[in-house]
């Protein structure tokens, strides 16, 4: 028995093959374009996400620095805007500076104020690519008239202008240009112009002064003549002064610098402040034919001071009266001691007392 002839297999015609090839090419090209576009979009999304994350981190850093700062300000700079933070704790005073250089947001830290233009600054990169950094200071009383930085429309309507009060006091630290760094409730507005969005951060110092002010008044019959810790007012050549010297202390601020735990009656514990950073100084205002104001700014001190039996131990709640969150009233000598210079304060008083006794000055 033999097999029959094989069934005929028609195959594709030429036109079918040509059409199929053309369709395949078209589909392949379209598919390639889809893949290429998807890849490009993925890269763009990833790049934007990275950039957005960097800016978010930078904004978070700025807010965190402000929260722990005793002062936030816009330092003088000839090479673009910058924002600087002053922190005080049991370790002393420190500064952190953020500024832009070569389209990069940089950060530097030091024990004293910094010049953003100083090429020798040891810097770290915070954000790798920004188009610009701008910093604007607003006094609190200007906030009801504040405008949105992008839309330009007023955005302070929630504030009652008559109820807003600005406090700006000397932090007793000189900036790089010699001007006093001030602290209070100023708002520093930082704008980071970066891809994908321009980000604005409003900053307020977290450890701003309580507003407590103690004014010490001292009346002398003339200027002191002795040499001592206040030579600027102890020059015998000054004999044209008025009959009084007003001896006024500028605001003293106590900022918690360290914390500890104290046992409570119920067997629990509560957080207490164990040390304060104290800043203050004295201003001497002279009247008469040669009016002059001089300030003796003492370096920030920590209370209890090092070496004190109280140092490192649980302190009493001084100087805060937790009954009303008030700073307890202190005598001038104690304030001077808190500021770390009790001897200088006593010497100043003694010098003026000596002057009282000197008939040359009407004693």
């Amino acid at each position, binding site marked *: 028995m033999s097999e029959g002839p094989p069934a005929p297999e028609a195959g594709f015609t030429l036109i079918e093959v040509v059409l199929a090839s053309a369709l395949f090419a078209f589909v392949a090209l379209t598919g390639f374009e889809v893949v290429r576009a998807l890849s490009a979009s993925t890269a763009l999304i990833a790049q934007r996400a990275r950039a957005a994350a960097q800016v978010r981190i930078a904004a978070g850093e700025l807010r965190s620095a402000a929260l722990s700062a005793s002062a936030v300000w816009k330092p003088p700079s000839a090479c673009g805007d910058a924002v600087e933070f002053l922190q005080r704790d049991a370790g002393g005073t420190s500064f952190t500076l953020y500024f832009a250089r070569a389209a990069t947001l940089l950060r530097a830290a030091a024990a004293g104020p910094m010049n953003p233009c100083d090429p020798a600054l040891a810097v770290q990169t915070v954000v790798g690519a920004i188009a610009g950094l701008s910093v604007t200071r607003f006094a609190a009383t200007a906030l009801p008239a504040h405008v949105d930085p992008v839309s330009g429309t007023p955005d302070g309507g929630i504030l009652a202008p008559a109820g807003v009060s600005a406090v700006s006091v000397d932090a007793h630290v000189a900036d790089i240009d010699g001007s006093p760094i001030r602290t209070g409730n100023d708002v520093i507005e930082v704008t980071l112009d970066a891809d994908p*969005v321009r980000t604005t951060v409003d900053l307020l110092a977290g450890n701003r002064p309580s507003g407590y002010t103690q004014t010490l008044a*001292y009346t002398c019959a003339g200027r002191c003549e002795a040499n001592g810790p206040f030579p600027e007012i102890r020059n015998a050549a000054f004999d044209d002064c008025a009959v009084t010297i007003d001896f006024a202390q500028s605001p003293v601020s106590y900022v918690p610098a360290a914390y500890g735990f104290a046992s409570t009656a119920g067997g629990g514990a509560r957080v207490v402040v164990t040390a304060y950073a104290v800043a203050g100084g004295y201003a001497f205002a002279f009247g008469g034919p040669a009016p002059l104001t001089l300030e003796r700014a003492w370096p920030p001190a920590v209370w209890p001071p090092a070496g004190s039996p109280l140092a490192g131990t649980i302190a009493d709640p001084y100087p805060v009266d937790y009954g009303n969150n008030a700073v307890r009233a202190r005598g001038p000598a104690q304030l001077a001691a808190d500021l770390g210079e009790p001897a200088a304060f006593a010497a100043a008083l*003694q010098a003026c007392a000596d002057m009282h006794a000197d008939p040359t000055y009407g004693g």
Partner: protein
Amino acid sequence: MPIRPTVAERDGEAGFGLLELIVCAGLLVLGSVLALAALPAIVRGSQAGVLRDAATDVARNAIERARAAAAYAPPQRVAGPAMRALTMAGHAWAFVPAAVNAAAVHVERGWCGDAATDVALDVATTYDAASDTLQVVVAYPPDPCAAGTRATVTLATQLAPPAYAPQTTLDATVADPAEQ
């Protein structure tokens, strides 16, 4: 012994017809075109978080400015014990009950085109004196190319109690050591 293919098997080897091929290719092309058309929406959708973050920043900034404005009471508010007690009870002296304002976020590369653009936001701020709470609601478009669609970010904060009655001055006279 060789086995002859059946008729059905021979039919199965006949392959696709041209019409089938064209329909399949057309479907593939249609799918690709749809995928391409959806790309901008996918990109915009992936950036919704950026706008939400921007709206959150606007709200945080509003609260920060409010905290600054209410940090210190005006001197006349702490002149007497009764007024001081009233002042220390909250921050109503610094706020009005409610306010609305427009804001915007500047986008460096627009999603509805290549140019940079400003995306409008609506801000509503309220102050509740009873709870001493400030609330900020920011409405933003999750899809910046469909401005009519709005989502909101809400931040609320209870303001810290006033510290020592602000701007209170305590006077002390320094005694002359020679007279002590």
